[in-house]
């Protein structure tokens, strides 16, 4: 019994080996598929140039292939015999008998018959050119297109000389992990551009082939193995990243040099920088003129909050930040580098996700990262007031102060510190617009810190809130000693808080100070 089983296993093994040798690597799968799908008793297909016909029988002890005879005939000629081979299907109690015609006649009716013990078991009439069963296409390639929402798909056709002009292909694609896919049919061509895809998404792509049904007919081939492709990010996000990077470099190379001149008309041109003299000449008229001069320049104080320790801050900070976030939602037109329109568009969620992901993966590159927004003239405020070892020596940021500042605009984050604090990023979200010109005054130590780890500074637009309020001469002198950088700073965040410059003038300095804006 053991010897019989061993012999049988050897036979099965040898048959399987012969099976693989006779057919190609896809032969067995084709047989299996036709066993499932084809209803004819004699199932036939053409792989390359030869027709193979097979039938299925229950496995019996005496069911040897010698009992079967396969014949074929055409054009009223005599029948010709074909050598029958057999193999056992794995996992099945059935045996497949098959015959591969040595010389297949095409484009003529072919009569095939199976005999067992001299009697006709099965018969069929067919045209061989109608039963192509091709191998899947080769070398499937999926490349990212240069355009948004597109993928370039290409492949090689089956290696057949006469039939390659008569093929159609089906391209199936789906988001990776999804069961929902789409199918595109293409004739003859072996490349296709998939359109209308989701940006920055991984797709799986399959291809299969069959004759077009005109000169040749046949079955669909098996699908190729899937190939993955990733679409590009959307143009808005991509261009923003690109523009950000470019403008960051531009800022690095050609930083904006703030000039206070326009806030002090005639100070430098007429009075040669003599502020005292300028004040004495313009004191009375400035009061009356301030309304007219600055109606179009609404003072917009900027509140700078430290993000060193968010958890230790009280509700006041959260309220302020919340107020900032609410205000930042109000955006207005600005004339700058043309990014205005783009900035007005709400960012794609995934764009932000990708930026955050980049931050997480490479936080030390933040100072050179793409997150720096062109319109944010950010201020590097070091945590330590002096001798900060992490201070980035940069000509642009000479006006550094011992605080770290975070701007958040339109849902994107800009962070110009090597201390990547994603917690602060997540908490500080909102929209806001900052022009590339910022007007700052840094009266050092003017505002005492509110609490441990918290440094608060009110940066007000020069001229209105502080400059034209009654000031003592000593204060004026103190201001004069400090560097003043009067880039035009129009922070629309606080726009609504300063409806009229006149009111602002009257409110004086106290309206610029304090966290309660």
């Amino acid at each position, binding site marked *: 019994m053991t010897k019989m089983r061993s012999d049988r296993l050897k036979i099965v093994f040898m048959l399987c080996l012969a099976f693989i040798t006779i057919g190609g690597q896809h032969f067995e799968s084709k047989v299996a598929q036709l066993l499932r799908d084809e209803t004819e008793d004699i199932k036939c297909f053409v792989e390359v*140039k030869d027709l193979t016909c097979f039938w299925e029988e229950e496995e019996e002890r005496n069911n040897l292939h010698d009992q079967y005879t396969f014949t074929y005939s*055409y*054009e*009223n000629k005599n029948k010709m015999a074909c050598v029958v081979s057999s193999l056992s299907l794995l996992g099945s109690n059935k045996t497949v008998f098959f015959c591969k015609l040595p*010389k*297949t*006649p*095409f*484009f*003529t*009716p072919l009569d095939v018959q199976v005999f067992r013990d001299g009697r006709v078991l099965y018969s069929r009439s067919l*045209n061989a*050119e109608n039963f192509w069963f091709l191998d899947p296409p080769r070398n499937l390639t999926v490349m990212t297109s240069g355009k948004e929402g597109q993928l370039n798909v290409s492949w090689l056709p089956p290696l057949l*000389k*006469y039939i390659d*002009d*008569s093929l159609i292909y089906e391209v199936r694609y789906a988001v990776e992990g999804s069961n929902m896919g789409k199918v595109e049919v293409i004739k003859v061509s072996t490349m296709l551009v998939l359109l209308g895809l989701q940006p920055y998404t991984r797709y799986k792509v399959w291809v299969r082939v069959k004759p077009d049904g*005109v*000169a*040749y007919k046949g079955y669909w081939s098996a699908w190729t193995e899937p190939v993955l492709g990733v679409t590009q990010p959307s143009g808005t996000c991509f261009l923003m990243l690109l523009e950000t990077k470019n403008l960051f470099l531009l800022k690095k190379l050609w930083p904006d040099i703030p000039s206070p001149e326009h806030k002090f008309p005639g100070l430098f041109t007429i009075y040669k920088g003599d502020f005292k003299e300028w004040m004495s000449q313009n004191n009375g008229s400035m009061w009356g003129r301030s309304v007219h001069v600055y109606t179009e320049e609404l003072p917009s104080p900027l509140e700078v909050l430290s993000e060193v320790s968010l958890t230790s801050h009280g509700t006041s900070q959260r309220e302020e930040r919340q107020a900032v976030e609410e205000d930042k939602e109000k955006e207005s037109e600005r004339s700058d580098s043309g990014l205005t329109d783009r900035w007005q568009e709400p960012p794609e969620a995934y764009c932000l996700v990708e930026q955050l992901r980049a931050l997480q993966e490479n936080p030390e590159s933040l100072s050179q990262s793409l997150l720096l927004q062109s319109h944010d003239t950010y201020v590097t405020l070091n945590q330590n007031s002096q001798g900060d070892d992490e201070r980035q020596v940069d000509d642009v940021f000479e006006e550094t102060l011992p605080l770290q500042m975070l701007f958040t605009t339109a849902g994107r984050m800009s962070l110009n510190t090597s201390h990547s604090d994603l917690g602060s990023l997540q908490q500080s979200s909102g929209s806001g617009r900052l022009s590339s010109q910022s007007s700052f005054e840094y009266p050092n130590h003017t505002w005492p810190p509110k609490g441990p780890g918290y440094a608060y500074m009110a940066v007000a637009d020069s001229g209105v809130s502080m400059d034209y309020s009654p000031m003592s001469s000593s204060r004026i002198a103190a201001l004069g000693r400090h560097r003043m950088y009067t880039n035009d700073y129009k922070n629309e965040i606080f726009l609504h808080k300063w409806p009229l410059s006149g009111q602002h003038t009257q409110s004086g300095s106290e309206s610029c100070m304090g966290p309660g804006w």
Partner: protein
Amino acid sequence: MFHGSGLFALLLMVLEWTRPGLSSPLRPICDLRVLNHFIKEAWDAEAAMRACQDACNIATNFTAPLTRVDFDDWEAMNIEEQAQEVQSGLHVLNEAISSLQASNQTDVLQSHIDASISNIASIRQVLRSLSIPEYVPPTSGGEDKEMQKVSSISELFQVHINFLRGKVHLLLANAPVCHQGVS
């Protein structure tokens, strides 16, 4: 003087028009979609004739070309041999189908018959555009290409579609004119 120049122009026009023995060369029609169109119409005709059955069963024999193709044997033939096989087959088919025009068929079947005759003529034009040698009838005593006998209209149109899909399609798809400069 005016009459002289006018006559001269007219003479030139007449000579150009009646230029004997010279036909303007046809642009090669290499696009297989042209033939595929004729093949699709041949499919329709074959399906219609197959459904006809008894009504189309005319007790007569048709001489029809052989349609069998062995790819290795076909590849071993030169272009002239292939052309002769196709041209003779088209000639014989045309004669067989044309003989049906005189028979009393339904309008639908008659339209298929007329379309098939017209398409065979168009295919000959396509072959001419590809510089495929024309059909040369066998000389007396010479052997014609092997033919077959069919006894029904349905079988005749099966031969028709198989011939177009096989030999004609192979000849056009591999016409030398259409593959010049391609390695």
